[in-house]
């Protein structure tokens, strides 16, 4: 099997990022950001690629994670694990509550209502100045030291990268496990033929709800990490542009593969970083890359390589 070998190479390359990335002109925080986007997109892809629900509102949960983490650091306790937990739970619970309101919608209506809820959180963040800092975003928090064995350890860029990499590995393991379980088989069955599944006695809406909630939790986890990376939570973390970026990342990398969102995120973040240093219109170049990718690799980049491998 070539697959485990390829996966092993990726993990080794990821572990060694702080050593080789600077040599190529990159910086560690860039890789951290790519991993954070990979986590969010992998979560979204459970819903998008595996369950077939096109959510254009997943930044809402990412953003709630970011605000949750920041607010927890400011108002509750200077603890990194608690902040991550608080952000994840906040966004995850929002996903659990909104799931029943979207799970019955189909196709375009599903997408529309997910956008609507996303924008609702965006406007709350902008308007609720006193709590969220309004348009300027939430500041005044940073990565506090973590207590490890009685020592206060400060997480610089490299240590924080490894923390995020560990979370990414955990998320990949969770997704991998879900996809080989009856729960994941049920997700795929919803995508393939909800009518058939319903007439096998499965409550299709409930299956969609669970997929929605899990993907919201994972997106929120990514958002919390992002707030800790940047020391900042902004309304843009909740907006539809970012939601769209997550979808682009999934489609670009390949929605039918667990590694697709990771690949998409890596390309997206590197392209964004490089292009935004040479032009303000970097978004149109990302758009161009996306169009080319969809034209030439309709299954996503990984979908293509998988197809070739199976021939």
């Amino acid at each position, binding site marked *: 099997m070539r697959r485990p070998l390829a996966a092993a190479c990726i993990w080794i390359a990821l572990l060694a990022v702080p050593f080789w990335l600077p040599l190529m002109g990159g910086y560690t925080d860039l890789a951290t950001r790519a991993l954070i986007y990979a986590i969010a997109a992998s979560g979204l892809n459970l819903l998008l690629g595996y369950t077939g629900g096109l959510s254009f509102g997943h930044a809402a949960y990412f953003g709630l994670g970011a605000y949750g983490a920041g607010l927890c650091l400011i108002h509750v306790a200077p603890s990194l694990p608690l902040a991550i937990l608080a952000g994840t739970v906040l966004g995850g619970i929002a996903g659990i509550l909104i799931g029943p309101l979207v799970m019955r919608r189909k196709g375009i209506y599903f997408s529309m209502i997910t956008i609507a809820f996303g924008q609702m959180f965006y406007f709350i963040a902008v308007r609720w100045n006193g709590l969220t800092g309004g348009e300027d975003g939430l500041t005044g928090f940073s990565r506090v030291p973590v207590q490890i064995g009685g020592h206060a350890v400060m997480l610089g860029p490299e240590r924080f990268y490894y923390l995020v990499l560990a979370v990414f590995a955990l998320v990949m393991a969770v997704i991998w496990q879900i996809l080989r*379980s009856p729960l994941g088989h049920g997700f795929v069955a919803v995508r393939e*033929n909800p009518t*058939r599944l319903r*007439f*096998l006695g499965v409550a299709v809406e409930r299956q969609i709800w669970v997929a929605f909630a899990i993907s919201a939790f994972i997106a929120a986890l990514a958002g919390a990490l992002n707030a800790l990376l940047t020391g900042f939570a902004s309304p843009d973390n909740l907006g539809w542009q970012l939601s769209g970026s997550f979808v682009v990342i999934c489609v670009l990398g390949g929605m039918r593969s667990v590694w697709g969102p990771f690949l998409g995120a890596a390309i997206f973040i590197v392209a964004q970083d490089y292009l935004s240093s040479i032009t303000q219109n970097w978004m149109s170049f990302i758009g161009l890359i996306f169009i080319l990718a969809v034209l030439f690799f309709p299954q996503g980049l990984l979908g293509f390589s998988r197809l070739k491998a199976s021939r």
Partner: protein
Amino acid sequence: MSLLKLENVSRRFGALQALKPLSLSVAPGELRAIIGPNGAGKTTLFNLISGFFPPSSGTISFAGEPITAVTPSALVRRGIIRTFQITQVFLSLTVRENFRVAAEAALGLQLRPWISRATRAQVEAKVEELAEMSRLGPKLDRTVGEMSHGDQRVVEVGIALSRRPRLLLLDEPTAGMGDEETSHMTDFIRRLNKDQGITILFVEHDMAIVFGIADRITVLDNGALLAEGSAAEISANPRVQEAYLGAAENAA
């Protein structure tokens, strides 16, 4: 006692009366054919029994209990399983994966993010059982979307067996099949009825199959019950010949 009983059940779509009030009863173990020209209301009848939509009037009962407003998934749990006129399977999955989803649904595992080794073995045993019943063992790892139309229909029936149906509804199981596939499917239906004792209602246009295997035949025409009886009674019924068999001969 009858397993399935419809009393004055009707269904309208806006101005169209797709099914006029009709009563019907099916005995346990019966193999019943539903025949009638296009648009007669056969699929509508299946949709009512399987809970796809509710009747406009009348009551339906199953095993003595009313099921008129019960959801499809609850009806499935009571043992009413159906296939569709247009094949409904999981196209981009393999036969094995199709059977596995069905087996997991039948075992009520659909929300479990992990299962024990023993439960997994139970699922795989069920998959093997479905493969054996449908005789699709050699094709288990084929992608369903790449198989012949006939095989896809067999997969759908296989899926439907995951829960050991008490009442199986097959909507035109042999439609679009070649001769060999048709006789395979006919055998399959007969086996399910005679060997497993499953009560079956099937819609069928091929009269050779209908008269060959059905215990009783119900004839619908233009949304109304035209006749019901044994093969001999139906083929001798002048109204049936006029409304349905004659029409089919003219068309042929």
